[in-house]
């Protein structure tokens, strides 16, 4: 087998296909998007008939993957960390139903919030659901541990979480692939009531989940992915989880250090291994990408073991992703920085692409709303969140997928008029539609401005769930047809667009303005492809 140069995300995708998945479900979200994209563009998926379409949101993706597992086939579901909040309901209950065909949930966390609203650590969800979590430290492990994860999943009849973080998701290295396994045959669960979580059955299923916890910990103790490397200098030892192991190795090799190291890439935590290293060493530095998950447990409450060092005692920064320099400083090694960044350098935040329709949409909105005063525009997750930056300063909230509609509703219910929300087409179908139904039912006076660029733009132009059907969805939800307006956000239409938005802002009731123009990135890409085919 020829080695492949793969991103961490791609290694997981390739491994999924090689491990015989019959389908993969996902909603795009940085840094997880490339997993599905790799499957979609691989010949392997089309040859093998592997299902690989985007879902409307992470919850529908998780449920569909569980349904595929129900049939005895292997399935994968992928999302970014905050996506798991959306999918939390089926996720938590999938640990109770258990699985039939192997099921791996891939969650990509984004410490340092490169492209996210928070840096929550998905390992807590894994512990919460009491399922195994695997956290590869490099691209090869990302590939290998998918096979390992499916074996664990099928051995214990439970879903397994595979946790990635941004730097592994988006870093490329050489990966040696295995021979591909064939897909499983269709075979329904032996117990036809396994997935029926009526209280009486759920209690039994939950007892099963509890009963395998010791065995899962034993798996972690014996796992080839959790290992202690002995070292002569026991003044300090290290526990390094996932990607943090690489930063530690970088520093130890460079400095020629010789300390005991426990590498943890499989959970539940291996108690015996942890007991061994904490017992052997005078103090232990815990290196984790994300929250101080393990460190907090080891310190105890109230803090009983002050020999445990890490993010909680200031040895490492409390927030943000780790890097080799943080680790070096934690060990007491002076970091030799290059020249300082000259004062003349200015920040360069992201901005709208030249020619983006959102620019014209915000220009029209800003003029239309001018008479009413600022501070009343709720917004959402997507490219249009950049409307918060100079020179627009056009939006006043960005909380979670779909929250613009419901926050505008709540504000309207409190008497704010006009109360406006700006949401993209893909975010609207992800989680905005249900909020719109609430507003219609309660006759809340909101103006919903849907920036319809007919794609999932921020993540690179994935298929949007309801392209061409936004008006009919709004009408179906109960918005009056005369209150569904469509504008084309172009400079030449500016005054007409301002007028239309003004009319809808003044209206008392639910109104929708759809600002529709294709994403400039997608348009350029498709023009290029057309040219090629000519």
């Amino acid at each position, binding site marked *: 087998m020829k080695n492949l140069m793969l991103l961490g995300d791609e290694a997981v995708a390739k491994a999924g296909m090689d491990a015989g998945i019959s389908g993969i479900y996902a909603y795009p979200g940085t840094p997880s*998007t*490339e997993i599905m994209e790799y499957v979609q563009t691989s010949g392997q998926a089309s040859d093998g008939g592997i299902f690989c379409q985007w879902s409307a949101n992470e919850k529908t993706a998780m449920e569909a993957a569980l349904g595929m597992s129900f049939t005895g086939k292997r399935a994968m579901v992928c999302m970014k960390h905050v996506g798991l909040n959306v999918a939390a309901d089926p996720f938590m209950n999938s640990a109770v139903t258990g699985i039939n065909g192997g099921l791996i949930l891939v969650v990509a966390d984004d410490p340092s919030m490169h492209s996210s609203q928070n840096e929550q650590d998905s390992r807590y969800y894994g512990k919460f659901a009491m399922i195994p979590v695997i956290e590869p430290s490099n691209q090869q492990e990302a590939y290998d541990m998918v096979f390992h994860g499916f074996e664990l999943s099928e051995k214990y009849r439970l879903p397994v979480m595979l946790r990635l973080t941004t730097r592994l998701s*988006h870093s*490329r290295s050489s990966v040696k692939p295995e021979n591909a396994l064939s897909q499983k045959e269709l075979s329904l669960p032996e117990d036809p009531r396994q997935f029926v979580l009526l209280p009486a059955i759920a209690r039994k299923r939950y007892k099963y989940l509890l009963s395998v916890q010791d065995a899962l910990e034993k798996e972690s103790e014996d796992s080839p992915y959790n290992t202690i490397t002995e070292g002569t200098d026991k003044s300090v030892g290290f526990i390094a989880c996932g990607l943090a192991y*690489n930063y530690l190795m970088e520093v130890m090799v460079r400095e020629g250090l010789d300390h005991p190291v426990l590498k943890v890439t499989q959970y539940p935590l291996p108690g015996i291994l942890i007991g061994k290293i904490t017992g052997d060493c005078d103090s232990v530095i815990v290196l984790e990408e994300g929250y101080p998950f393990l460190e907090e447990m080891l310190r105890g409450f109230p803090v009983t073991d002050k020999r445990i060092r890490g993010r909680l005692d200031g040895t490492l920064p409390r927030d943000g992703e780790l890097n080799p320099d943080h680790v070096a400083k934690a060990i007491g090694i002076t970091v030799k*920085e290059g020249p300082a960044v000259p004062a*003349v*350098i*200015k920040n360069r935040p992201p901005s709208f692409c030249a020619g983006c329709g959102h620019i014209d949409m915000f220009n029209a909105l800003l003029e239309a709303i001018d008479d009413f005063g600022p501070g009343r525009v709720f917004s959402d997750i997507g490219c249009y969140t950049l409307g918060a930056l100079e020179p627009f300063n056009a939006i006043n909230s960005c909380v979670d997928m779909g929250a613009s509609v419901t926050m505008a509703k709540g504000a309207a219910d409190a008497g704010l008029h006009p109360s406006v929300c700006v949401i993209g087409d893909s975010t609207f179908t992800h989680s905005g539609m249900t909020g719109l139904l609430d507003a219609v039912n309660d006759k809340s006076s909101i103006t919903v401005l849907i920036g319809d660029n007919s794609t999932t733009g921020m*993540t690179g132009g994935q298929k949007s769930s309801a392209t061409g059907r936004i008006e009919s969805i709004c009408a179906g939800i109960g918005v009056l047809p005369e209150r569904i307006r469509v504008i084309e956000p172009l400079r030449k239409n500016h005054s007409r667009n301002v007028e239309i938005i003004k009319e809808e802002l003044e209206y008392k009731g639910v109104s929708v303005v759809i600002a529709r123009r294709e994403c400039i990135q997608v348009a350029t890409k498709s023009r290029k492809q057309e040219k090629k085919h000519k």
Partner: protein
Amino acid sequence: MQKDVIIAGVGGQGILSIAASIGLAAVAENLRLKQSEVHGMSQRGGAVQSNLRISDREISSDLIPLGSADLIISVEPMESLRYLPWLSENGWLITNTTPVKNITNYPDLEEIMAEIRSLNNHIIIEADRIAREIGSPRSSNMVMLGAAAPFLDIGFENLEEAVRELFRKKGNDIIEFNLKALKAGKDIASEEISK
């Protein structure tokens, strides 16, 4: 052998084509490689970089430690200075001269160039002008790659082969233009070094 390279630019400038070429050439020489990229929000016109590490030994960290980059290759002048804390004592900074002014407070270009010139090891390349002169204005990134070639410890023929591979689907004309751009960049850098 180990080379730590930071490739810098603005989202949309296509710095990953430079990284991918070096990557292909490194693989052809049986070197190990780790290449960290920026995807997501910053790709929308923000500051972007790629950490590229090639070595004949195992590479642990996907990120380059502070003060240890051998090379900063930047396709935009202000961006070339953003990563100076990562540059090693003997490291080189190679930058294009064409600014991308997508922010309202873009500094005075002369001040930026003065900062670049104050560094011991720098090469300033008018990559866009050179690309235009050879008749392929879109090949400026390959001019930049060529300028970096003398510092990479990778056979030039392997870089050429990588460029062929990278543009294989785009036809022979595009390949030839990019090879020309690569050579032009290399020649200028070699001249600068021997000064």
